[in-house]
């Protein structure tokens, strides 16, 4: 066997049964490609870097904070930033830096769970409704129209007030919040996925799948769904920023988790009284909200720029 033949044989063997290393290599190239695509849009790259920092901070919170976020220390009230307290302390003498990080961790988790919840209900709903069409679709979409007609903020207020009424606290309160925010996201997701499915359904590969005997659910969820994720990802990313804003707003209004749980919204509200004497206390949670929402929006906008031309190209 010549060297060339041997190499060809080895290649064929590798194709026949790819090794784990080969598969990992493919994943690596896929990741590399994704980063390459991302760099085409400056907006997306900046957003991505900001998000990596944000998520990094959220994950590392227990290790990079030095104070208990709810432990009060009246001897060190309203201190300016110093070596001991990186961002100073609030009116109860709690370390602002620690509170921000713990609050952010909670906020981001709530947002992620809420959006995931919304997607996991909305996508199958919209995809199946769009794929089956006809009367099923009409009824399903009128229901969604009804939900969309109901103002989102009112819904949150209603649910949060109910939660209070039923004396839900701590983790239960957060779960109610997640449910409410996710539920409010559902109609939008359902609509978006339905309209994408309507476009995708016309393509011949769907017909080809039917011709080989693929079942309806399999076509809708296994064949069509992967083709409509791009607009959904963009939408979900922007939505994450929006959800964070809503949660902060609710707790600012005093409808979120009651103190002393660290929370950007309620911290901001509490800091209002010290606007003149210690404006920094209000500035930090404000900036944190700004940063997070901006990060998600930049990333989402950039993603749209990257994904859209490719959709048009096809």
């Amino acid at each position, binding site marked *: 066997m010549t060297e060339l033949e041997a190499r060809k044989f080895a290649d064929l063997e590798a*194709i*026949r049964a790819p090794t784990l290393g080969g598969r990992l290599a493919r994943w690596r190239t896929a990741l590399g490609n994704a980063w390459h695509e991302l760099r085409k849009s400056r907006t997306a790259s900046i957003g991505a870097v900001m998000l990596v920092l944000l998520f990094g901070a959220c994950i590392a919170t227990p290790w990079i904070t030095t104070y208990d976020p709810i432990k009060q220390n009246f001897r060190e009230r309203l201190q300016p930033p110093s070596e001991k307290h990186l961002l100073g302390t609030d009116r109860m003498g709690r370390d602002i830096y620690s509170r921000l990080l713990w609050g952010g961790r909670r906020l981001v988790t709530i947002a992620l769970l809420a959006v995931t919840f919304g997607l996991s209900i909305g996508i199958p709903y919209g995809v199946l409704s769009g794929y089956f069409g006809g009367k099923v679709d009409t009824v399903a979409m009128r229901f969604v129209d009804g939900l969309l007609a109901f103002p989102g903020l009112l819904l949150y207020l209603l649910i949060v007030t109910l939660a209070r009424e039923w004396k839900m606290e701590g983790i239960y309160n957060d779960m109610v919040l997640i449910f409410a925010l996710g539920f409010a996201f559902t109609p939008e997701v359902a609509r978006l996925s339905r309209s994408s499915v309507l476009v995708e359904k016309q393509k*011949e*590969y769907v017909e080809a799948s039917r011709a080989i*005997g693929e079942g309806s659910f399999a076509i809708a969820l296994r064949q069509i769904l992967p083709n409509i994720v791009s607009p959904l990802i963009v939408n979900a990313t922007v939505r994450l920023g929006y959800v964070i804003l809503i949660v902060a707003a609710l707790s600012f209004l005093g409808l979120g988790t009651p103190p002393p749980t660290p929370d950007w919204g309620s911290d901001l509200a509490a800091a209002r009284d010290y606007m003149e004497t210690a404006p920094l206390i209000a500035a930090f949670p404000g900036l944190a909200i700004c940063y997070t929402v901006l990060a998600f929006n930049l990333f989402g906008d950039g993603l749209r720029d990257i994904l859209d031309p490719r959709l048009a190209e096809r």
Partner: protein
Amino acid sequence: MTDAAATLLSVKGLTKHFTLHGDIYSKLAGEKTQVLKAVDGIDFHIRRGETLGLVGESGCGKSTTARLVTRLIEPTAGEVTLKGEDLLAFSRGRMKEARKEVQLVFQDPYSSLNPRKTIMHILSRPMEIHGLAHSWAEKRERVLELLQRVGLGVEHIDRYPHEFSGGQRQRIAIARALSVDPELVIGDEPVSALDVSIQAQILNLFRELQKEFGLTYLFIAHDLSVIRHISDRVAVMYVGKIVETGPAAALFDKPLHPYTKALLAAVPEADPAKPAPRLTLQGEVSTPIDPPPGCRLCGRCPRESAVCAEIEPPLVDVGDGRQVACHNL
């Protein structure tokens, strides 16, 4: 072999009418709903191992016919008999099995392959559905064989459709059709989206595969020279009707129906010495929406007579295996 055994697929009185729903205002105004007669009672049969070419202009119902005989859409009326069994009476489960026998190759290789699936998935999925391969290794082996058979390198197996050219994609689509070992392959304009030099490659591939696997083809196209090249027998469609059928050579050398004649005269042949293309009919293609009684070619035909406007000409035998639907032969 008896004639019935030799016939793989036969179609009788196949009809598909679409009801066009006007908007609510036209309904309120009392306008009648219109009926689009996409396919209006056609008969044909395909013998084992032969190629039937179905030719016609856009909107004549040839693609609808392909979807009717594969039950991708349900016909309004008519019979479709596959290997002596009534296809339209099949239950869901039985139909799924029958899908293995009849495979489709679509026109646009850019949209007929799922852009998010690898070639491996696209070609192995049909085997999975029909239980033709069990282990992953077995599937992989068969997919590699298929790729080689349609003239693609084995290294392509884990790639995505967008990495291929139009001709290569059409080869993948053909491989998908072959993956379940069908008896009948229906090509719905499988070469019309391709460039001339690639088209020739794919036509040759169809030929080779037919010889190797004893396939039967229903080949749909609007290009008459492609139909002439690939078909043993030809059926010409015009606005939902078959107007002429017969062996390819005879039909092309001596067309009988005025529409077939007009089609052939309109083809620009790649030879300046041949007569220039011209239209021997008047006006434009008739509408399939609520067509008037009588022959569909009425008003365009040079040989028209009084009877044409009243009675629809039936498809009658004229000898030599040819059938024509015209009052004035």
